[in-house]
């Protein structure tokens, strides 16, 4: 696992904004939103990490997405964090073209937080009713 972290750090040394090893099994990396697809691709394809889920949330400073990956061979969770400060037109590149398993969660974050996933092949509602008003995002703290 140490190798994996080093490989990730080595490959993206210039791009890691912040790295935190909260415990032996929990690592968090902050990246610029634009760098997420490249890092996700490296984790998924090269390091064989499993995409677990993404957590979207609204904080006072920005919209935040955390992509959680599991490295099952070592039992570690690697979480990639990206901040999207523009709350008016928030957008980020979709990772669904890389990992098809991310299709649903990106749809969910899109409808609940209003983050547009650029390049998503099927961006439509997942959980909300068809009659739900446009532009109302249930997980936004302020609208």
């Amino acid at each position: 696992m140490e190798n994996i972290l080093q490989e990730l750090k080595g490959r993206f040394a210039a791009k890691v904004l912040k790295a935190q090893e909260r415990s032996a099994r929990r690592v968090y990396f902050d990246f610029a939103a634009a760098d997420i697809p490249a890092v996700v691709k490296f984790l998924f394809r090269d390091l064989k990490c499993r995409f677990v889920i993404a957590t979207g949330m609204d904080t006072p400073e920005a919209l935040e997405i955390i992509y959680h990956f599991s490295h099952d061979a070592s039992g570690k969770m690697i979480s990639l964090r990206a901040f999207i400060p523009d709350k008016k037109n928030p957008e980020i590149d979709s990772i669904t073209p890389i990992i098809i398993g991310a299709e649903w969660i990106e749809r969910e974050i899109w409808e609940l937080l209003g983050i547009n996933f650029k390049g998503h092949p099927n961006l439509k509602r997942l959980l909300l009713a068809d009659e739900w008003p446009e532009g109302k995002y249930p997980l936004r703290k302020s609208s």
Partner: protein
Amino acid sequence: MSHKIVVPIGPYHPLQEEPELFRLYVEGEKVVDLDIVIGYNHRGIEELSEHKHFDQVPFLVERICGICSTSHPFAYVNAVEDLAGIQVPERALYIRTIIAEMERIHSHLLWLGLAGHFIGYNTVWMWAWKYREPVLNVFEMISGNRNHYAMMKVGGVRRDIKNEDIPALKKAMDELVPALDLFRGAVVDDPVIQARLKGIGILTKEQCVDWCVEGPTARASGLNIDVRKDEPYGAYDRVDWNVIVHEDGDIFAKTLVRILELYESVSIIRQCLDKMPCGEIDANVKDIPPGEGIGRVEAPRGECFHYVRSDGTNRPTRHKVRAPSYMNVASNKVAAVGGTISDAAITLAAVDPCYCCTERTAVLDRGTDKKIMNGWDLIRLSQEKTERMRGK
């Protein structure tokens, strides 16, 4: 020129009795595409959790699902303990493990019964549910409840397993093994079951990786992943057991994996009962510091994931829940396509889907703090939608 015909299964599944809609696009008997529509059971639990005290949340997430009702609280307490760095007393770890494994037994038996029912083996259904009953009785003996046991709490468990109850628990496990032998024999030896399940609804290992599938669904396709082994929690690293993996990826393999896992669960429970030390069952946690934590549990259907963030108050500021069905149900798109309509029912059921788990999250407008919709509105919308679909 061929014409595509749509066969809808849902919005209320006639067999699983849960709300979802599968639109099967068929040409003749063959399924050529699948559209999965969920959202009928969306209750806003992630948002609701932000309004609960850290100690109230286990009761809330326990109600995400009535079958794996201990997996969500278990993953949640793991997340909070990860966040706050809490050491859980040894006896509590064993009790948590026993409860989680008993849940796996009753959940797998429930699925086995339903799977039998889906393919017309109603005897298997009756048997499986008959032998599930003593497990529920043990739950009632320990916790007072058959389904929502309310055992998990941050820092430990709410109730002890009394030493005088242990013989009855062991007896229940002993009596279960002949029943498991019966099921294993019935599935492995019956040519008709083999004909119905072998080579049907295949998920390849590569597809499992791409769709991020987990639990018995992934293990039946040769993926050796199990949170209990990969990141041991509870007492799983203190007992001896095996991860069951099969290579074929068809429904027969998924059935076999679940049946063989039942034996492992019985073995884990027996070892836990023998090794369980005396002592405290609760670390008496007072405050939760600011921070973030991740908790994972191998639920009967696969990995159950909870992420909790705290700002130092007594409520989580964000609580993300991801149940295994969220990933597994989506993979039906590849498992069912290419098969026939008559196989679709069992294929769609083979991941042991749980729609209650798949749908949670929020229906509040925080800006005005006004409810845009309440539960009744959602039910009304759901009913109206059903009516519209009936009209079409």
